[in-house]
């Protein structure tokens, strides 16, 4: 009991400047972890991306122009680690390459339809992020590819 009281007294005696340095140290630590985690995320992403290309045949890989649009406008929600559960369930670009042909083509058919109806990106999403909309050129690129027709 008396020990506890002693400790409390000690705590109370910590000068304000000390507290300040403790806070600074904590803040520094927080910043360090944050930048650290960002750094590692960057690395793991770089390592992850080329992987699928090694496995898949050239036929399955996305054409460069399609991939550019997908990365910019679709991948944010439609990826294997997406927090947007609905988006991930409907379409996961990371899984597309590993699919058998019928399934991959089916996904393309569904993409083509969603684009035709103008359902993606969702209206609600665009309310907060109007710059996320597909430009006409981007839409044409995706539509051409997903229709499965050769140019």
């Amino acid at each position: 009991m008396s020990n506890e009281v002693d400790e409390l007294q000690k705590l109370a005696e910590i000068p304000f400047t000390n507290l300040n340095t403790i806070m600074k140290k904590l803040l520094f630590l927080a910043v360090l972890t944050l930048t650290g985690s960002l750094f590692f995320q960057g690395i793991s992403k770089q390592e992850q991306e080329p992987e699928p290309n090694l496995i898949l045949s050239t036929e399955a890989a996305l054409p460069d122009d399609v991939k550019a649009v997908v990365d910019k406008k679709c991948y944010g929600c439609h990826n294997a680690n997406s927090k947007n559960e609905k988006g991930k369930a409907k379409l996961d670009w990371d899984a597309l390459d590993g699919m058998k042909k019928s399934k991959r083509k089916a996904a393309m058919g569904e993409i083509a339809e969603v684009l035709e109806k103008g359902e993606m990106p969702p209206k609600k999403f665009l309310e907060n992020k109007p710059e996320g909309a597909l430009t006409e050129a981007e839409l044409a690129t995706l539509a051409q590819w997903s229709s499965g027709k050769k140019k």
Partner: protein
Amino acid sequence: MFVVIQFIPNELPPTTQQNTGDISTSGLVSKEIADLLKTSCYSCHSNETNYPWYSYVAPTSWLMKKDVSEGREELNFSTWLDYDTTKMLGKLDDISSEVGEGRMPMKIYTLMHPSAKLDETQRASIVAWAEETMDKIAEEEEEEEVEASDN
């Protein structure tokens, strides 16, 4: 009130019984599957809708109009042959997941039409059919592509 809303115009989507582009003419469905689709899906997903008496009475008539037109737009077995192969694959993939995960037929529909309910075996056979047919279509398409490149 009930009498008043009967005068609000509400045109139900038209029906046709003989459809040359119907999936049953495509050679993709067995008699068993065709019958299952007819009993459980055709009311909304074909032009062969059977409108019950309450389809003509507001407010159920409004719901009927909405569900049938949306259903046909999403998937119409009567105009199946109008879909290109990519679209067909997309539709079959959707059928497989919607039926397999129990979202279709819709509860509100089976409530009014208990005979349209699918038991587990029927559900499984529709899913199996959809998956097999996807493989079949994808294979046929591949053969055609090979033939085209040979010529």
